[in-house]
């Protein structure tokens, strides 16, 4: 146990060092970077001042809003697919195939596909192909397998439609999975480097995906890269922490079957709006 904890402590320090440096580098004087004298320990806010003219907040904020983790439509697409597979649709093989494919395999053919659809150099190239993610569908399916199916059957007997079941019963039960998968999907999308570089040219770099900062740092740019890069990650980290708290509180509850949430409306209202009469 002691050896394992020592390994853990050493690895935690190894992980923490670049993160701390990333935060601290935002406060070292830009001159230290220009002179390649990084061991100069100083404190300055000039890097933040240099951000003022870069339009970072507008660009990064725009991306966060466009691809926000809680976005309903992508989550709905993925949950709908997982729910259909749980109901016997034979789509799992396709999902597993796409899951196992390295993403670079699609770089060339997807470029051609987007070119044919006139989506190259548009925001659509950065958004539309990612609306459905095989990884997220797979994760949600795993969550759905633990949902007691009697609840779904009971809702059907009460006359609830499939859309109502997904929206009012399945989605609330799977909220931790939905949040966690949204964070994962957002982080994966946010961290794309080569894809936006290939599918969009410089004007659409303003879509904000961070590949433009991916080039090696220019010393002349001072230390302004550091606040540029870690500040957009802050909301993600907060979201991750809150979702992990919620997920762990669910998973630590005794028994694997989950309690369905208390319905917001009466069954009659649900039936009346979304489902056929019994």
């Amino acid at each position: 146990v002691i050896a394992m904890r020592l390994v853990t402590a050493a690895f935690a320090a190894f992980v923490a060092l670049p993160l701390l440096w990333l935060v601290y580098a935002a406060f070292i004087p830009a001159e230290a970077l220009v002179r390649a004298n990084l061991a100069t320990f100083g404190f300055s806010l000039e890097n933040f001042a240099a951000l003022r003219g870069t339009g970072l907040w507008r660009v990064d904020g725009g991306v966060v809003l466009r691809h926000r983790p809680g976005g309903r439509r992508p989550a709905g697409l993925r949950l709908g697919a997982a729910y259909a597979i749980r109901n016997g649709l034979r789509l799992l093989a396709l999902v597993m195939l796409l899951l196992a494919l390295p993403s670079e395999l699609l770089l060339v053919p997807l470029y051609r596909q987007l070119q044919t659809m006139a989506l190259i150099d548009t925001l659509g190239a950065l958004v539309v192909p990612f609306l459905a993610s095989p990884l997220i569908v797979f994760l949600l399916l795993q969550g759905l397998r633990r949902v007691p199916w009697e609840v779904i059957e009971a809702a059907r007997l009460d006359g609830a439609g499939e859309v109502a079941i997904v929206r009012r019963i399945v989605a609330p039960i799977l909220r931790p999975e939905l949040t966690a998968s949204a964070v994962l999907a957002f982080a994966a999308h946010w961290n794309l480097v080569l894809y936006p570089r290939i599918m969009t040219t410089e004007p659409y770099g303003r879509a904000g995906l961070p590949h433009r900062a991916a080039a090696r740092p220019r010393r002349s740019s001072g230390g302004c890269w550091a606040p540029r890069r870690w500040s957009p990650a802050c909301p993600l980290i907060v979201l991750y922490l809150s979702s992990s708290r919620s997920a762990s509180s669910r998973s630590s509850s005794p028994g694997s079957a989950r309690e369905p949430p208390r319905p917001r409306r009466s069954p009659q209202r649900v039936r009346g709006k979304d489902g056929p009469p019994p």
Partner: protein
Amino acid sequence: MIRGVRTRAHLLALPATLVFVVFSLVPLLSVLRFATWRWSGTTDPLPVGAANVLRLLSDEALWASLGTTAMFAAMALPAFLTLSLVIALAIEGVRYERAIKALLFAPGLITVGGSAIAWYLLYNPDFGLIPELTGLVLPWTSQPWAALFYVVLFTLWQQTGYGVLVTSAALRGIPREVKEAASVDGATRGRGAAPDRVADARPTMLFLTIIGTVFSLQSYTAVYLLTRGGPFGSTRVLGYYLYETAFERYQLGYGAAITLFVLVITLLVAYLQARVLARRGASEATT
């Protein structure tokens, strides 16, 4: 009636299926056609038959990059699995479990471009902070072995948190009765418990092995950001070679042929994955 309900449930998969088909399946199948073209991406494609596929056989750089990818996987995968298991076991139930998990997962949430810059400035042999403060230099800008090791370290730094989370979730999912039976049999945290837990976590380790292999095949982003395939092509993994050929040399037709090559390797891995999973399912069914 049940059939009608199922059909309505299946309809919910339509939008996602459409996205999968249009942006993944159709492009993937189109690779076969693109591989027979000479095409730069901006001009009209010129059919060249099997020339691109034949070129694969004599392309030394391609085979070298396959070797580099295998070397990368051989270095990264065992370390990834061991660290995931050891750390998950070490932090299970301790007071700071959540904090450590959050710390280890944080690199996956930070913009990879920013992470790469931080690493560049920390470990640069010429002016990096660590060499300046400690005198310890990893010559990754000049020595091929050090460059590959550097990329492996960066990948472990980024991905291990994910492995720890998955392993930890699997350990947590082990039924309480099994844990109680182990403690009745005299297993404690220090004695006897760890080997049992390792055996319990075997399916998860299998899953991580498969996922880790796929990650190894698509490790080109770290290479692009840190070393650009150098020095002397020592870190040019398959994915990066594909990117370089297609989008830096503008040989998209040949890039499609390389895509086919990587696809064959990936399908081999997927086949092994399916066999192992099927065997596992059969053994679970008999027990």
